[in-house]
């Protein structure tokens, strides 16, 4: 009785190792292995079809992980990895749908997805889905998720243009320039930058109007990050956006407004007639002096 779980576990481990590793174990070899582990060969834990599905999923997730990791900084997740993601989705879907040929109750979905406590395949796929959602990639892909949407293409185009412009204008200058000496860049690239900024703002507005729910209020991470980098370069590194500060008029206007209540309260204190209350004498025994009169009069 006690021996049963152990071979089963070994079997599962073997199966996983077989699926993930490059070394493919032929079915015949597996049967032998099973035999040596003490199990009858005609009772395999995983059917061959399922095994291949699992292997495909493992490869797909490895590729997607690789892609995501490589494109973490600067963020290019949605542009670079949407193909991988789509494939992985499909692979997961086929696992969930697939039915082994032995019996209805013994299909691949059941044996791969739900037969142990860890459920690693489900966890992995959930992780990828959540990442994709958080990155909001659906926002810059076409509706059928094949390729980038037109607006995103346009945005990235402009983005590349402005980066090129920055590079161009910086090339001529010496490396050891002082931090304030970026006027050339500011002047020459202003047009592209403004265009880019406007486009971004427009995309954001459209997005906000379209989507009601919480997370779709953001654009996809690629666009956001690209804009962020550019803005940081522009206003932090190059120090180009110098808003004109008109402190003197602001101080003048605000002190005028702040001065008004003082005038108001002073004038109402001095000119308004103070409200007076007329006291009413209560009719009471001890406080009513006139009672004494009554008493005298009638006694």
């Amino acid at each position, binding site marked *: 009785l006690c021996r049963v779980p152990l071979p089963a576990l070994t079997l599962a481990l073997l199966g996983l190792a077989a699926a993930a590793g490059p070394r493919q174990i032929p079915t015949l070899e597996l049967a032998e292995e099973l035999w040596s582990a003490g199990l009858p060969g005609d009772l395999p834990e995983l059917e061959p079809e399922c095994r291949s599905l699992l292997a495909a999923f493992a490869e797909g997730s490895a590729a997607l992980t690789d892609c995501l990791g490589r494109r973490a900084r600067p963020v290019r997740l949605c542009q670079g990895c949407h193909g991988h993601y789509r494939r992985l989705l499909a692979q997961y879907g086929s696992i969930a749908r697939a039915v082994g040929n032995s019996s209805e109750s013994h299909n691949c979905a059941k044996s791969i997805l739900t037969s142990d406590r860890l459920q690693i395949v489900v966890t992995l796929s959930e992780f990828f889905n959540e990442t994709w959602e958080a990155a909001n990639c659906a926002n810059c892909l076409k509706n059928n998720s094949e390729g980038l949407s037109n607006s995103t293409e346009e945005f990235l185009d402009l983005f590349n243009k402005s980066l090129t412009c920055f590079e161009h204008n910086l090339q001529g200058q010496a490396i050891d320039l002082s931090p304030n000496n970026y006027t050339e860049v500011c002047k020459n690239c202003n047009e592209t930058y403004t265009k880019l900024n406007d486009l971004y703002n427009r995309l954001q507005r459209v997005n906000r109007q379209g989507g009601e729910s919480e997370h779709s209020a953001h654009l996809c991470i690629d666009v956001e990050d690209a804009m962020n980098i550019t803005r940081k370069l522009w206003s932090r590194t190059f120090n180009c956006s110098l*808003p004109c500060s008109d402190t003197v008029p602001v101080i003048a206007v605000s002190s005028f*407004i702040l001065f008004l209540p003082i005038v108001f309260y002073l004038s109402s204190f001095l000119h*308004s007639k103070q409200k*007076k209350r*007329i006291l009413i004498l209560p009719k009471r025994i001890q406080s009513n002096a006139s009672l004494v009169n*009554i008493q005298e009069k009638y006694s």
Partner: protein
Amino acid sequence: QLTPSSLLRIGQLSNVDLNEDVHELETELPRQRPNEIPHNEKLLSLKYESLDYDNSENQLFLEEERRINHAAFRTVEIKRWVICAMIGILTGLVACFIDIVVENLAGLKYRVVKDNIDKFTAKGGLSFSLLLWATLNASVVMVGSMIVAFIEPVAAGSGIPQIKCYLNGVKIPHVVRLKTLVIKVCGVILSVVGGLAVGKEGPMIHSGSVIAAGISQGRSTSLKRDFKIFEYFRRDTEKRDFVSAGAAAGVSAAFGAPVGGVLFSLEEGASFWNQFLTWRIFFASMISTFTLNSVLSVYHGNAWDLSSPGLINFGRFDSEKMGYTIQEIPIFIFMGVVGGILGALFNALNYWLTMFRIRYIHRPCLQVVEAMLVAAVTATVGFVMIYCSRDCQPIQGSSVAYPLQLFCADGEYNSMATAFFNTPEKSVVNLFHDPPGSYNPMTLGMFTLMYFFLACWTYGLTVSAGVFIPSLLIGAAWGRLFGISLSYLTKGSIWADPGKYALMGAAAQLGGIVRMTLSLTVIMMEATGNVTYGFPIMLVLMTAKIVGDYFVEGLYDMHIQLQSVPFLHWEAPVTSHSLTAREVMSTPVTCLRRIERVGTVVDILSDTSSNHNGFPVVESNPDTTQVAGLRGLILRSQLIVLLKHKVFVERANLNLVQRRLKLKDFRDAYPRFPPIQSIHVSQDERECMIDLSEFMNPSPYTVPQEASLPRVFKLFRALGLRHLVVVDNRNEVVGMVTRKDLARYRLGKEGLEELSLAQT
């Protein structure tokens, strides 16, 4: 000081006088020249009268009650439930209306100002943006203040003091009229859109009460429409119960706190209470929050999601960081102390300001100008704070509704602007939930300081607006500041989450200002949706109340006192046992005989110097030497109805075909009985006689002269009386105790104080 024996003699003497003709006596009394004093808090206004919470159990009433059988009483009970459901639904709908309109109008305003600021930041000329913002605010507030000041002044403020008075038994003129509701709703929308430091939650309580009072009567006197339903409820006793249900429904719609609403009614309002009423009130509250929830969820596009139970939603507090440990309890208590002190400071400042306003700014146009100035200054202060702030936060990943960039780098927003450039409700939620690091300590400190004074300045203006949200906002700001410094001191421990401390600070500040305990604990608990916060919130509120009460009283009580309202607290002042009914009562009393001359009645009623409402009825014995015992009590309103229908003995004798007066005739006149001047009585009719025995209340409550003040008080307060006759041992009327006689004794700083009556 008179000796008891002489007092007794005077009592008898004045009693004899009464039987002859009190009027001549009264006119003969040497009247002093009117004594004028500036307004102060030790006055009782003559303007306020009591409500008749005690049924006048006259013959008509008894006959009607006897006619109603068991089944009919059941119908009445069902009607009560139907009315409560309607109160809940309508209150919820009004709350929805306010919320949606405020959201849209405020959104429009902030978008316009934001676009303008963005435009001028690049080009220069930000002073124009400032002017635009200030003018927009001032003009919106001007409209809001004008409708209040010129059309219905009772709609000013949060309305909670007024409702508290109403439920205590004081008749505040116009407080539950339809016109007041309309002005209140419009006023609140305009003052929130106008950017004042106010909230829309307090006025919901008043709105709910007006709705309740209106529906339960089945008619509107303002619209002159009578739907001929719910006629049974046309009296003060029934109306009061519905008004407490309306107040509860209002709280429940405002905070999404049905239980808190019931407890609010219990704590602040209803002086009279029973279990069935509680259950009905709870029903009305639940209906109200459910209505609001479903309508708003449909409006927000996710129907049947039911995610916005109240006007303000504190958001969810269930993440791991938001939990608290036992070691933090002393810190929370300390925050309660701070909240109590700040709340007392707020109230003290507001006290002086309100006193100044009552004395000097009493003309409506001045009040409107003041409100406009406050609106303009609020905008200016906000603008200057935003202008001077250098606290920039990255725009990404934040949920700012109107991010103002101003002098920040591209892709960043001004953090001060999230606090000032937003409706106060949103700012509160931001302070609770923004991740740590969203605000500079400097920003929070400046914001707390400025907002404290602005909110204090704003409360008491002639606009309809509440103080709940500003208090929460001030508290949340300093609470968050406290949390940040705490995590700085402890080198960034995980438990020092600023959002949690913002919540505790908000509770402490609100508790320190309004001094509510039980209901506020439950409201905060329900608004956060986290029951485990009950304990720390309770501790915080308790501490805040204890500390605050040491300095000054709560804001609502203070305003009730400043309005010179004769408000009766739960108990008589503790040191008042030495006073007896004889010293408390008013005497001599204007009495009527059981069969009285019409002329006398008309004269008594039209006498402007004694605006009495209840008259003891004594035996109509022509022989004055004999004792005339008390037979009953009749009200002014009843007399007026009698005169109007000319129920005279002679007419009955003449066999004129006359319908017998029914209780319905009295109900139809309720609650606005015509003044005596509008009733014409011819010279011949003055000589007629009127028989009061059928209409008077034959069993009025009486006390002997020796009863102590606490005993009289208890009787008066517990039964909701309006008149309490003081009799001697021969059942002769000696004096009369009314609300103002009892309310004038108050426990002041130097023991028992006596307030004086004044005409206001």
